[in-house]
Structure formats: C-alpha cells, structure tokens
C-alpha cells in the first residue's frame, strides 16, 4: 500500500504516453502530454510527504512544528507552470496548423514525410 503513490505516478506517465502514441487528434495528443507531465507532480509531492507533518506554512502554527518538505513543493510549482506554458504553446501551434491544413489528424498531416 505504501508503494501506491509511485505506482500511480508510473501509471499516469505510461497511460499518457500511450495516449500520445495512439492519438488521432493533435489536441488530444497535447492533452495527453500534459497528463504525462502531471505524473511528475504526483511523484515529487509523494516523495516529500510525511504523515502527521503540517504544510510548510508557519502562519497559524508554531515555528517548531514538523512540516513536510517545502522543496518538492517549490519544484512542483515550477513544473506546473512549465507544463502549462508548453501546453499553451502547443495548443496555439495546433490551432495555427489547423488553419493551414484544415485537419488535426496526425496521419493526414504530412508536410514532413520523407
């Protein structure tokens, strides 16, 4: 049971990759990429968590209170923003591509086929 968070992180990562690989719609694939990214949030926060410890915010609690790891939370915060920025950029590119080609089915987009 104590392994559950890690199993969930790996599952989210792999299922997201599966979604990208089998995607038939570019926007779908982009959302799947953000799902893959979210697996890292789960992993990082699970690593820093400790039962019975408070959140690392010392406003209503004494400073000596034991609190969970603030570093993984800061990393995850950065990671969330980075993921959001990448997703936004990809969505914008996809919209623009649709304007050119009239489709977002990856199999019908082939300006790069070689």
């Amino acid at each position, binding site marked *: 049971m*104590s*392994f*559950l*968070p*890690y*199993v969930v*992180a*790996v*599952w989210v*990562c*792999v299922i997201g*990759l*599966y979604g990208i*690989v*089998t995607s038939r719609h570019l926007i779908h694939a982009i959302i799947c990429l953000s799902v893959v990214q979210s697996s890292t949030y789960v*992993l990082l926060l*699970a*690593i*820093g*968590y*400790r*039962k019975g*410890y408070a*959140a*690392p*915010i*010392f*406003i209503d609690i004494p*400073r000596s209170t*034991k*609190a*969970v*790891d*603030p*570093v*993984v*939370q*800061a*990393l995850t*915060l*950065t990671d969330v*923003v*980075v993921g959001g*920025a*990448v997703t*936004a*950029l990809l*969505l*914008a*590119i996809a*919209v*623009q591509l649709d304007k050119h*080609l*009239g*489709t977002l089915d990856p*199999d*019908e987009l*082939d300006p790069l*086929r070689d």
Partner: protein
Amino acid sequence: MARQAPPRRRPGELSFAGRRRLFVVGAVGLAGLLLWGLAGLPDFSTFTPVYGQVLNRVAVEERSTTDVVTAVNFDYRGFDTLGEEFILFAAVLVLGLLLRALAEERRGKIDDDAPRRHPGKTSDAVRLTTVALVGPTVLLAIYITAHGHLTPGGGFQGGVIAATALLLVYLGGDYAAMRRVRPLTLVTTAKAAGAGGFVLIGLGGLIFAGAFLQNFLPLGQPGHLVAAGTIPLLSLAVGLEVAGGFVLLLSELLDQLLVLRRRRERRSQ
C-alpha cells in the same frame, strides 16, 4: 477542406498496429524500470529530505516569510523561477506572432463557417452574473499575489486568476468591454515589465548585496504584509508577467470567436 484519404502508410513506414506493438514493448520496459528504481526509495511517508528540513527550520527566520514554499521559489531557488518566467515569456512571444497574423488575416478574407463556430448565445442572467464576478475575481487575484509570502499563493496563482477575469468578461459576452479591459499595448508592456522587473530585482541584488538575486531590502517581521525583502516584489513581477501572458494567450484564442460573434450580432440587428 475536402477529406481525401491519402495512403495512410507507405511501404516501410510503421503501421498503426506496428507502432502500438513497438510502444507496448517500450512502455512495459519503461514502467518496469521506473518501478524498479522507485522501489529503491525509502518507504512512503518515512523520508524527510535534509534540504527541506533545513529550510523549514531556518527560512522563517532568515527570510521573514511564513510560507516556506514561497521563500524557496523566490529566494533560495529564485533562479529556477527566473528560468520559468522566461519559459512563459518565450511561449507568449509566439502567441504574439499568431495575434499579428490574425490581425492581418482579419483585414483580408472573411471566414465562411462563422455560424457553426459560434459558442452559443448568452442569456442576460449569465451575463449579469459573470460581469458581477469580475470585480471580486480581480480583488482575489490581488489578495493572493500580495499575500504570497504569508499564505499559500503568490504571483503565479494570482496572475492566472487575474487573467481568468478576462474570461469572465468574455462569458458575459461583452466584446466591447473586453476590448477595453485588454488594450494590447498595455498588456504587452505589463508582461515585459514583469519579466524585466524580475531580472532588474536580481541585478539589484548583485549591485547592492553582492550576488545575483540576493535580498537587498529590509526583511521586516515574519507574518507582516510588508516584509520578506525582495520576495513580494519578485512575486508581483511574476504576477504581472503571468497575468499579461495569460491574457494574451486567452485573447489570441478568444479573438476570432468574438469577431465572429460580433459580426453575427450586427447582422441580426
């Protein structure tokens, strides 16, 4: 566009089933590896990383913040946040390009499938509710940004919330109002000022304290609104940039829809 079916796969290319087989083999291997690696971690909820423990012990004292996560993001590891800001900055620059292309397009041809793209008519009740929500949303955004060093939140969350106020205006269906609250030059400048401001505060640390991003302002008392040195300023800079960036982002996506809606409304009058 006519939907002709080109040969989906040419000889030698991976078939769809082949691709899936390839992936399944890879994914099983990858998942197994990751689980093997994760099995080497301490059991869940037994590990207290020394880095975080040290910070939990000293950050309130050293930085006069009560939210240690904010202290890490904007001070101890502020350089990460600088990088993150410029990731957002680069992403939003592309949106600026798209906006410009859109503006040129609008001068040219007119879209013919407008009715089908219309998101639906808004009732007056919805309009009123959403517009009434704008004020509180903006207030909430300011509150969350300003209290970043005290409570959960900060410039990033506040910035996104501020940007969603724009979305509310849109849901209210008031295009003219949206144009007013979103003068593009101002938004672009806010975004650039936020991004540039972060760097300037960092350089201030180099000049006045000796190291890039080092605090050079009085720290004050933990728990006070005006405290924590440069942290609230950096948070504000991030808030400006994020709000500007997301407003641009949303409006890039909204613009065309709104133009179409306005055109339809004018026709029906």
